[in-house]
């Protein structure tokens, strides 16, 4: 399956080859969880505060689906 992954803010340092907002396209097996993809990419679990899939809130144990747009987000907020 093909998924695309984005990371923002302080998490960008783990995927420095990506421009701002640029996606990493990955092939993953059926049954792969969002947490496993995070692990594969070397994103520390304690730095990922929120995950979004296709613009909606998602959870680490959720299974990735073909074509998913996955975003890992660190602690953010503001005003």
């Amino acid at each position, binding site marked *: 399956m093909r998924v695309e992954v*984005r990371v*923002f*803010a*302080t998490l*960008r340092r783990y995927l420095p080859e990506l*421009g*701002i*907002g640029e996606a990493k396209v990955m092939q993953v097996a059926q049954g792969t969880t969002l947490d496993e993809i995070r692990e594969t990419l070397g994103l520390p679990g304690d*730095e990922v*505060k*929120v995950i*979004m899939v296709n*613009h*909606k*809130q998602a959870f680490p144990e959720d299974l990735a689906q073909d074509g998913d747009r996955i*975003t890992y*987000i*660190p*602690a*953010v*907020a*503001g*005003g």
Partner: protein
Amino acid sequence: MARKILRINMADLSHAYEKVPEKWAKWAGRGLTSAIVADEVEPTCHPLGPNNKLVIAPGWVSGTPAAPSSGRTSFGGKSPLTGTIKEANSGGLSSQKIAKLGLAAIILEGTPKNGAWYTLVITKDGVEFESADDVLGKGMYEVDEILWKKYPNKPAVIGIGQVGEEKLSNAGISVNDPENKPGRYAGRGGLGAVMGARGVKAIVVDDTDGPGVEIADMELFKTGRKKLTDAITSHDLTKPNGGLNSFGTNVLMNIINEAGGLPTRNFSAGQFEGASKISGEMVAEMVEKREAGMTGHGCHPGCIIKCSNIYPDADGEELVSCVEYETAWAMGANCGIDDLDYVAMMTRECNDLGLDTIEAGNTVAIAMEGGLIEFGDKEGALGLYDEIRQMTPLGRILGQGVEATAKAFGVHRIPTVKGQSMPAYEPRAIKGIGVTYATSTMGADHTAGYTIAPEIAGVGGKVDPLSNEGKAELSLTFQAATAFVDSTGYCLFIAFPILDIPDGWAGMAESVAGVMGMDITGDDVIPMGKEILKIERNFNIRAGFTSQDDRPPEFMRYEKLPPHDEVWTVKDEVLDEVYAWVNGK
């Protein structure tokens, strides 16, 4: 020395120090400005007329030694933009200096004879009423510079730009930052026009040899201060090199875009294809690339979060401080503009002219929707600020904000509640913040009850932004907590760490209890916040507002917002639940 009220009457150019009456004794910051406005301002008065007042109050802990990030000043009055009670608060130099002069609040009332304009100079010895001839008609960059030359003790300068002088409804109040730049604003609701209506162009606050802030229980204060400081410096969002310190509030641009809740081209879509180009990450990249400006800038002395920035131009010269999320969104995504330099130039125009950036960006977007210029026309957009500077008839309309401009251009997609335009979160994609916009005592205002924390950021819990479930209660809890934090003098951003770290929450309350000698704990935060909301709500009721005013704009109920294709579906009865308790239901 007990705190005092400084009352300044512009009609006869007199001033008097008054004991803080018992009914106001426990309040500071927003709690105090709202209590004074509710008691002394007739709710049905014209906001620009002789019966409105401008009340200025530092928070409970402002001016105390090393209370972290505690430089917020509250400004209150009846708003010319909304017709409601208004509190807008700002960073900058003023809060700590007013507090160190031993003042709980400054009440500005009356109108000068013969249309004269004044600069007020407040020191430990009283108030001097100086002619404002040397600063009148000037923008805030020049005003700050002139007044720092004239008054060499690096005073706080509270001032209004040309828009406030003309008493237009989108006039904010500027406070100078530690480098004496006018980037800090009590922006929302047109309080700059209320200051202008008092004939005051600027207020210089020099705290030299002031009595300082009395602390009732130093041990308790120190205990609370340490707990709060530890929470701020350990939370991933607020710690050194954390999200806010590295990227500022604009760290949100890409995230809210990803959530499909970034209002784009006058609230017609929830995603902007150019979001990454105007994001906080891009600000940091420009600072690095141009080897100028900075991220991690503090807006007031003693801030340990430092979310501000100084944005450089292509020649490496300082362009503006600061490009924050709301501003980048309002000038950028909402106008279809993806050029950060133009965003920064427009921000500088706002800071100079004395405009609230949220309302200004929304106003330009309305003008674009109305066909004055095209969405994405950055030169055209920048030129509209010059219309305001020249005070052309068009500029005067734009200076009045979104609703006046929408009428002038026949636009009906108007993203306002109670006359004030919405900030950078789309209610159709993030329902809780829509409940806050609809019901807040201030008009559409994200800071009034920032449900974004749990709805998007996973701070203070995690809830689904697209769900309507539990959003009335969530919004009320955030609105009450905010009313308390807005009274402390602490920056609202301390809320993020202390929502996740209970010791920090307790520490905030203990530091307040220590200063004031009040018997309060963390458990009192929400009830005291609700007391403030009740004061504000009742002012609005007396001004003629009803539950029918607690509604999001009509178009949000029938226009689907991509990418979620959602409309506003929270029922009116649910909105009415938020403040039902005020009237005993």
